[in-house]
C-alpha cells in the first residue's frame, strides 16, 4: 500500500511517498492508518490535526483502505 505525503507530512516522514508492506497488514482503515503514523512518526502527534484522503476525497476513520486506493495524508491545509 502506497501513501502520498504532502506539506509537513513529507518533512515528518522524510519522503514524499510511504510504502506499507505486508508486515503492516493490520492497517486496513483510515483510523488505523492514523494510529500507525502517530506510533511510527511521533511528529504527527504534534500537528494541529491531519486528515486522510482516499481516492482524492476526505475519508472518515471507518473508511477501509484497499490495495488499489490512492491514499494521501492531508496535514492542515493553508492555501490562499
Amino acid at each position, binding site marked *: 500500500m502506497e501513501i502520498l505525503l*504532502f*506539506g509537513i507530512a513529507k518533512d515528518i516522514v522524510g519522503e514524499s511517498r510511504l510504502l506499507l508492506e505486508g508486515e503492516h497488514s493490520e492497517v486496513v482503515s483510515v483510523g488505523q492508518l492514523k494510529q500507525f503514523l502517530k506510533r511510527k512518526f511521533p511528529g504527527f502527534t504534534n500537528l494541529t490535526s491531519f486528515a486522510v484522503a482516499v481516492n482524492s476525497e476526505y475519508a472518515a476513520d471507518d473508511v477501509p483502505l484497499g490495495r488499489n486506493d490512492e491514499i*494521501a495524508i*492531508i*496535514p492542515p*491545509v*493553508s*492555501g490562499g
Partner: protein
Amino acid sequence: MKKILIEIVDTIDTSQVYSELSHAQSGGICVFIGSVREFTDQEEVVALEFETYKAMALKEMEKIANEALSKWDLNKLILRHATGLKKVEEPVVIVGASSSHRTECFEACRFLIDTLKERVPIWKKEIFRNKTVWVSAHP
C-alpha cells in the same frame, strides 16, 4: 462559454479575470486576489512556497464552485490557485463571481475564498531568512 473556471497554475495572470467573469446578464463582478505579504508577525517573509495535491485540490475546488452555484444565482465563477515559489506582492490565488446584482457576487466571492482556505489541499510554507514554517501545521 463555461460557467465554472477552475485551475491550478504556475503563475496567475490577473489581467484576464474581467473577460473571464464578464457576462451579458451580469451587472456585478466581485474578485478577490490573495498575494504574498512582506511581514508575518513582524518577521520578514522572503517568499511563500505552495504545494498542492492537484487531483484532489481540483475536485474540492469543483465542489466549492457547485456549492456556490446552489446558494447564489451566479452567471460565472472562477477559482484559480498558484503553486510553487511566490515572492512578495505576487498573486497566489484569485477567486470571483459575476451575477445580475452585486449582493450575490460579493457573498459568493467571500464564500469561495473562505471555503477554499478551509478545505482545498494546498499547503503554504513561509520562507524567512533563517527558517521555513509550514503555515497552520502546529497549534
